[in-house]
């Protein structure tokens, strides 16, 4: 969980577009239905001589379905936990990589120099998602939120918060 500083409040929380999650989930859901179909075919077509194998086939199917269920929620967890939190003092970028790797970076708003948006392709244009890139004054590489939903709004919100922060601190 992210710990906020004293008198710090969250302005906005940004995530990737749901289309990205959908594309990742399609193969898992497809495999889910494939296992169900294979189990159903095995139930109907298996010769009676191999009747003892039926519970084993169902057990195998249950194992596979459980693995796919886990993969489904690991993917959702990965999507949900990749997040940009914009507060009135800083930006926090959290990137979950699998189950046991996690990268958290933060950037004070006075270090933000500029922000840009990249929208590539027909789908990204119609569904309104793209990469938001925040250039910083530090030597560290830019902050990039890949496949952000409504990237122009994200960029505007970041720049507005930076302007408000500079005005409040007379920078």
């Amino acid at each position, binding site marked *: 969980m992210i710990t906020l500083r004293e008198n710090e409040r969250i302005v906005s929380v940004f995530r990737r577009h749901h289309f990205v999650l959908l594309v990742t989930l399609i193969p898992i859901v497809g495999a889910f239905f494939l296992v169900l179909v294979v189990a159903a075919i095995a139930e109907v077509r298996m010769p009676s001589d191999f009747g003892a194998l039926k519970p*084993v086939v169902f*057990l195998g199917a249950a194992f596979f379905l459980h693995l796919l269920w886990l993969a489904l929620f690991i993917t959702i967890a990965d999507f949900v*936990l990749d997040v940009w939190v914009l507060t009135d003092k800083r930006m926090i970028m959290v990137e979950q990589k699998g189950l046991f790797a996690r990268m958290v970076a933060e950037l004070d708003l006075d270090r933000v120099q500029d922000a840009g948006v990249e929208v590539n392709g027909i789908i990204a244009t119609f569904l309104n998602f793209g990469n938001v890139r925040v250039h910083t004054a530090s030597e560290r590489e830019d902050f990039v939120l890949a496949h952000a939903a409504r990237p122009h709004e994200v960029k505007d919100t970041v720049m507005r918060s930076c302007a408000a922060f500079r005005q409040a601190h007379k920078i």
Partner: protein
Amino acid sequence: MVTYMALLLSVLAFCAVVLLAVITLVVAYHFDRFGIEKNRHRIVAGVFLVGSCVFIIAEIVLLRAVSWDDVLQSVGGRVPMSEQDFPLSLPFKP
């Protein structure tokens, strides 16, 4: 021999169920530990845990229903071989 193999298979299958249960808890922990909007994530984690419990119960029920001795019989020793299957004279008895 068949009984030992059956025992080994049932133990392995049980270990697989336990492993899946452990992974389930790890994933649920991630939802709870690192979430920003706590309540929203708890609903997702709840759905996930309920689904996983259904799978684990189904696996345990199926595990109890499987007769590993019969499975090994139907896979390996269903039709005993006879000398008629081997017209050539072999140096050993199959």
